[in-house]
């Protein structure tokens, strides 16, 4: 159901209207972000901060009507810039677009916390940051594994697949599965044990 975000136009190919003549020095912003990413360069961060922070504060204040909240947006947005600079990829879009996305997402989650009284942070699911691609070797995590896992689970016999999927992806208990599939609990347990044995073999012993 999902398309990869491959249609993002490059900012060069998609230059904005002519009356915005290069007021923003994009190559400079990219260079600073790279310095932050490669060297944790505080001077470069100060430059980026000086460029964005006052503007972010103005925008956020207009939206949230509160100086304190606007400062929170500045702080959260710029913290993300510092922590995520290595994920910025200038082939995926302009630095301004990247920072804007972070700022918009931070503001959205903050407003939601106030209005809907919800602590969920949905913004990164709704507006994912365009980030550099990482090969699976770069990122070793359970989440990546779960994608592999899915492929491997599909090779199991149907009756074992049902149990494994229910248990791991739907997070049903073995008792719930027994009721749901109308099978004795013992059958569920043995199918799960069999399936896990096979999965371990295919994934290697270090994944439990």
């Amino acid at each position, binding site marked *: 159901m999902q398309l990869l975000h491959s249609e993002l136009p490059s900012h060069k190919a998609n230059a904005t209207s002519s009356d915005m003549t290069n007021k923003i020095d994009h190559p400079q912003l990219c260079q600073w972000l790279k310095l932050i990413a490669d060297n944790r360069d505080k001077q470069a961060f100060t430059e980026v901060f000086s460029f964005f922070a006052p503007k972010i504060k103005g925008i956020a204040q207009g939206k949230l009507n509160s100086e304190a909240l606007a400062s929170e947006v500045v702080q959260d947005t*710029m913290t993300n810039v510092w922590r995520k600079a290595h994920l910025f990829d200038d082939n995926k879009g302009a630095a301004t677009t990247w920072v804007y996305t972070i700022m918009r997402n931070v503001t959205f989650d903050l407003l939601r916390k106030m209005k809907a009284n919800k602590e969920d942070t949905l913004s990164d*699911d709704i507006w994912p940051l365009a980030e550099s691609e990482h090969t699976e070797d770069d*990122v070793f995590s359970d989440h990546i594994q779960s994608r592999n896992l899915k492929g491997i689970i599909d090779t199991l016999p149907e009756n074992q697949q049902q149990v494994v*999927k229910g248990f791991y*992806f739907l997070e049903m208990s073995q008792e719930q599965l027994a009721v749901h599939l109308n099978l004795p609990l013992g059958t569920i347990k043995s199918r799960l044990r069999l399936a896990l044995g096979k999965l371990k073999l295919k994934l290697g012993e270090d994944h439990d």
Partner: protein
Amino acid sequence: MIKHHPKFSLLKSFVDGDLPASLAAGIAIHADMCPICQQKISQLTEQVAEASFEQDILIKTPVSESAHTLEAAQMSFDDIISEITASDDIAPAKVIAKEKLITFKGMQYSLPNALRNMELGRTAQIGKLSRARVNLGEGEIHTNLLHIGPGGSIPEHTHKGFELTLLLAGTFADEQGEYVAGDFIMLDKRHQHQPATEHGCLCYTVANDALHFTQGINKLLNPIGAFIY
């Protein structure tokens, strides 16, 4: 082929971050399935970002305080920079989140990314209709996953507010024609519709008021409106 897209003003509000989570998620799901809107959103985001940061925005402060406030703001900016850069932690690369599945009437569906971290209520059923509430806490705006089993339909109704139906899987048809996965159907109170599905379908629905049924016996079924939306 997807024929129904969000109109421009909705895309703009989406990019600005001004929509409630329910509608923003609807647009994100549509854009994931629709390269045309994906492209529009990308371009719009780039333009809005450029415009946001190209000029100095003056923070309005009373004239008498401005010098003092500016100085204070400057100092606090320096503090924030030191505070942020004091930590060398970097964010981990984006991880591909675990796929989340949902089952209606024995049919299993993968939830769109935008809904992955939303809280879902239990599934309730009336006849061929099953629905799970998406608990977003948005007051009168109600969001649901609505499954219509094969051969099922929703009795003809009008709507007092707005009603978004985003088809996630399967197809359905109403007086206007056939709809496919990805179609983004926004109705307001002027419209009537009676979606019916031959093979079953799953929809993401957002509405800000209960349905109003318009046809004879179906008026008796009005409680169904509260059930669906």
